[in-house]
């Protein structure tokens, strides 16, 4: 005990002289104990995030005797064939087509409208708060409630609900707020000096948007597009009451979870994941391309 006490002042002195060793963000020196704790937490998080999904992907490659749980029984593509040929699993192909088309339309509208709104919100204008809160309201409103309201509205107006009218609008009420929030973050990094320089050089407003803003903000716009696509491709609650007689893919998956108890369901999970990865790959690839092009043209 006394030895510990005798050491105390010395420890204090070293703490005062070299506090860097226990700092959070030094670029050298030993790791604090929290590093190991947090690294473990992070590892557990990633395992819990991916583990279950890998189980599903693996189980989807079982042969015809396979079930919903391990152990795996053989390997084959049986459940993928089953998914696209069997009538009892529903109209997977049709709903897949519709979901992709819908997601593409939603993406285009989301990018254009979010970009314009981002431009508008850069300066204060009378009533901007109302628009802002309308947007936040649209984001947080329960999707099923909004979907029902849209469905009832179409009924009352004597319009037919369909995936390319009511469901499109219902999905936009969810993707646009996300898109505009992302645009806020993107716009905040845009240097106004470039725009002013364009005006000084005699550019019109449209020219400065087309020749300065869009090229500079392109990676951000791709990010908005990615958001729009995946949010739409995965949208369920808002589409439920608004898609009309023809299902989108999430609605099809939903009805499958209630009726189908075969690895077909898992096969669908694997297929949708592959499609998502193709889309992300293409988007990230285009961001990298844009950056590279910019790097070579504006070096220095």
């Amino acid at each position: 005990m006394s030895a510990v006490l005798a050491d105390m002042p010395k420890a204090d002195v070293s703490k005062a002289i070299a506090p860097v060793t226990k700092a959070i963000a030094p670029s050298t020196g030993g790791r604090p104990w929290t590093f190991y704790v947090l690294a473990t937490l992070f590892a557990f998080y990633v395992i819990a995030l991916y583990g279950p999904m890998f189980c599903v992907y693996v189980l989807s490659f079982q042969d015809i005797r396979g079930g919903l749980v391990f152990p795996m029984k053989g390997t084959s593509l049986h459940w993928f064939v089953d998914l696209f040929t069997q009538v009892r699993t529903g109209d997977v192909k049709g709903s897949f087509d519709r979901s992709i088309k819908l997601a593409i339309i939603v993406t285009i509208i989301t990018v254009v409208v979010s970009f314009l709104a981002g431009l508008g919100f850069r300066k204060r204008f009378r009533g901007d708060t109302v628009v802002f809160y309308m947007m936040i309201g649209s984001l947080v409103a329960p999707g099923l409630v909004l979907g029902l309201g849209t469905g009832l509205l179409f009924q009352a107006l004597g319009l037919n609900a369909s995936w390319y009218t009511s469901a499109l609008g219902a999905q936009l009420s969810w993707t646009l707020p996300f898109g505009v929030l992302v645009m806020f973050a993107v716009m905040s990094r845009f240097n106004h000096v470039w725009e002013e320089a364009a005006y000084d050089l005699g550019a019109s407003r449209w020219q400065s948007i087309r020749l300065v803003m869009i090229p500079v903000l392109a990676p951000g716009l791709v990010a908005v597009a990615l958001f729009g696509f995946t949010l739409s491709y995965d949208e369920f609650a808002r589409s439920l009451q608004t898609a009309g007689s023809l299902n989108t893919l999430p609605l099809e998956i939903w009805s499958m979870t209630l009726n189908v108890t075969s690895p077909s369901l898992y096969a669908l999970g694997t297929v949708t994941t592959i499609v998502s990865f193709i889309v992300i790959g293409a988007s990230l690839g285009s961001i990298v391309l844009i950056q590279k092009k910019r790097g070579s043209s504006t070096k220095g």
Partner: protein
Amino acid sequence: MTDFEAFADMQPSLSPAQTPPRANLAGWLYVSPLVLVLVPFFVAPILVVLAASFFATDGFGGLTPGFTLASYVEVLHSALTLKLYLATIKFTLLTWILTLIIGFFVAYFLVFHVRNQLLAIGLFLLCTVPFWTSNIIRMISWIPLLGKEGLINQALLGLGVIRQPLEVLLFSDLAVVIAYVHQLTIFMIVPIFNSMARIDKKLIEAAIDAGASRFDIMRLIVVPMSKSGIALGTIFVVSIVMGDFFVVKVMSGGGSASVVSAFYEDVGVLQYPTAAASAVLLTLVLVAIVSLILRTVDIRQEITR
């Protein structure tokens, strides 16, 4: 945020009241496409639901336009309503606390502990990738793990820890919370990561030089400066959990219900007015929670900073 900071954050442009009319017009022109979508697909549907909540019904889906508070009386008097709200609040709080703790520390680890920036961005992307897979698929992916014959039970049986498979793992409240945390932690990580990444490292070095302990730095610098990220993440998580019915329905195996899952059942049996009344109540509760959050943190100013 102190008054001084709020002042310093103010945009150089004039306040809306002083803005010249031309700027007002330009602003409205830019946001008009947004408004043209939000009015018919957010404002109008909400008004329709509000109107429907005052209508009378014949019980078979027929609606009689009119003004009656019968549906509200029915919803507010039902003992079930309180039970549903308690269940919803329980799921929301548990999910919020877990996603906040995991999200905060994952973001903290990536921003302050991973020294290689490229590695940090790579690990961050690793966390966001599963977000691109269907939510429903991610949810049912827990079945092969948590089920009665699932991996966890098999492992525990194999190790001799338990003699009989645990039934509590799947189709229970536990499964519901696991599924929510699995789906929603990303909504905490991304905004918190964004706001933490913007903290100037010099500030932390200055604090260390001034003798701050690591706990002080966390308490006085990191947490206050991540406030906007925490607020944004909280809005996402709370509004998604409170507005969800699907996870509760599937992962509890029908054993639990939330406000929206009850709403869904009501719609299924064409009880539109009661469904609408409970939807209006839920929306009011959500609006109250979100405006409370927005009152503490001005996200618009924080994001555009």
